[in-house]
């Protein structure tokens, strides 16, 4: 315990670094996955390429990606950008399918009605299709966020910082408290991020929690 009290500042800094590495990829992944997922949802051919393609990307081991990327990007091996890019790739890989499925779940008659009301395609996508995809999309986003937070820990093996540093260092110096702290903080971050996304999803979709009969006059 004395290790912890002496290293609070370091734990907090690692937590900050961890978030800086874990969250931007989720955002990048979402921004890229929305148009790709929309494309997959529009055309069967695009889906046949994009969804299995994304699946294959996701099977690349993270450590291999961390090592290979500097060669491709021209970055230094210890550059945190490598981790962000690698995790963005995973995020896109997971989210393309989520976005495509979320859009496919929007009822066809609602889309037909929107077209018939006089929506142009882009506005229809932003005002009708995307908001209706939010419930399914948030479910996918939660998985990606938790995955991203846990994968950053692997980055510690190539020395990019974050909470993973605490347990690699804890192993090397045989400080169990440091190991437990690293694992515990990662878990807490993942649970917190997941809860926040769940809450945000609920706030964004008040309509999804009303069922037939709720509030209807007798």
């Amino acid at each position, binding site marked *: 315990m004395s290790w912890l009290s002496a290293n609070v500042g370091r734990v907090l800094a690692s937590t900050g670094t961890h978030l800086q590495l874990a969250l931007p990829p989720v955002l990048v992944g979402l921004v890229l996955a929305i148009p790709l997922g929309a494309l997959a949802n529009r055309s069967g051919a695009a889906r046949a390429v994009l969804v299995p393609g994304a699946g294959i990307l996701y099977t690349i081991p993270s450590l291999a990606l961390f090592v290979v990327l500097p060669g491709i990007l021209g970055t230094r091996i210890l550059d945190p950008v490598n981790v962000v890019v690698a995790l963005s790739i995973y995020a896109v890989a997971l989210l393309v399918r989520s976005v495509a499925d979320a859009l496919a779940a929007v009822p066809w008659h*609602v889309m037909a009605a*929107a*077209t*018939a*009301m006089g*929506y142009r395609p882009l506005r229809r996508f932003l005002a009708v299709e995307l908001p209706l995809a939010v419930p399914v999309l948030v479910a996918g986003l939660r998985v990606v966020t938790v995955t991203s937070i846990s994968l950053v820990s692997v980055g510690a093996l190539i020395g990019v910082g974050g909470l993973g540093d605490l347990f690699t260092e804890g192993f090397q110096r045989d400080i169990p408290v440091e190991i437990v702290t690293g694992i515990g903080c990662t878990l807490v971050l993942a649970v917190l991020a997941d809860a926040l996304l769940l809450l945000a999803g609920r706030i964004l979709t008040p309509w999804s929690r009303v069922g037939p009969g709720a*509030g209807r006059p007798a």
Partner: protein
Amino acid sequence: MIEFRGVSKRFPDGTLAVDHLDLVADSGKITILVGPSGCGKTTSLRMVNRMVEPTDGTVLVNDADVMTADPAVLRRGIGYVIQQAGLFPHRTVLDNVATVPLLERWSRRRARARAAELMELVGLPATMAKRYPAQLSGGQQQRVGVARALAADPPVLLMDEPFSAVDPVVRQGLQDELLRLQSGLGKTILFVTHDIDEAIKLGDAVAVMRAGGVLAQYDTPATLLANPADDFVASFVGRDRGYRSLGFLPAAGLGLREVPTVALGSPAATARRAAVDGWVLVVDGRRRPVGWLPDEALDRAETVTADRLVAGGSLYEWAAGTGEGPAAGTGEGPTGSLRGALDAALSSPAGLGVAVDGQGAVVGAVTAGDVLTALADARRDGVVPG
């Protein structure tokens, strides 16, 4: 006016959905496209607002070729009501109704005021404005759908089986509501249904289509029932078409006969004296029918009580009626149709159809024989075609 000039639609898979359709849907009228599934009725409807584009021919809305218009702008000028309403689940009822005005760049305030106005017009209470569609019944959703279609006051309305997903009682209410709205609005309505009864009830003109997208007959409902163009139309309008066509014959020539009545609570002896052929009609204090009393039910009874009555049949509205057909709801005298009169006679336990006035008071009775005589007279005078 909506006009189809030699319109065909062949889908990429080679199916010919609509085959050289020529049809004019008059301004201010309800024109029905009816037919079995696969007859191209919905495809025809969707070519009007370019949800489907014709492979051949021209569709004109108020004399303008729809293919020359910007589709989004064209559609904002054409109301559209779809089966299951197609409401936006993520928007409140009020915002759903305000959709087209907002697309037309009205201010939010003005669009919402207009939406509130329309909710009232279609009979939705203002308390529903903030609800989401999932909180409404099917019938209420359909009303929201109609309000949304009317919000920007388009001259033309397309309705694609709008009432087919609700139960029969609600459907009837919605149909009556549409006729009431239309009598005030006078929109040019193109309405698709597979239900011939709905077509007959709502249509000023009915186009019957057959498989392969061919127009089989285009006529008024009365003509369609009286003179089907071929066996397909005859079988499609159904076995009861002779009976249903009575709905279009005003009961003007039909005389009323007296009906034996007795007030509820009268002495049994009075009822016995009044009965004709073993039956007497029991009425309440305002002469409204309560039920039929068979005289054998009076054995050992002192007075006429409600528990001895046999339920009456349907009532035939003699005056201020709300029957269907062209004679409905106008002026003095017999306003119902022969169909209403015949149904009243056939459904009455005594064989006498009870005729009531606008207040529901008994004015007389008709027998099935009376109706058939009136029908024979109408035939002789040439009122009935064919």
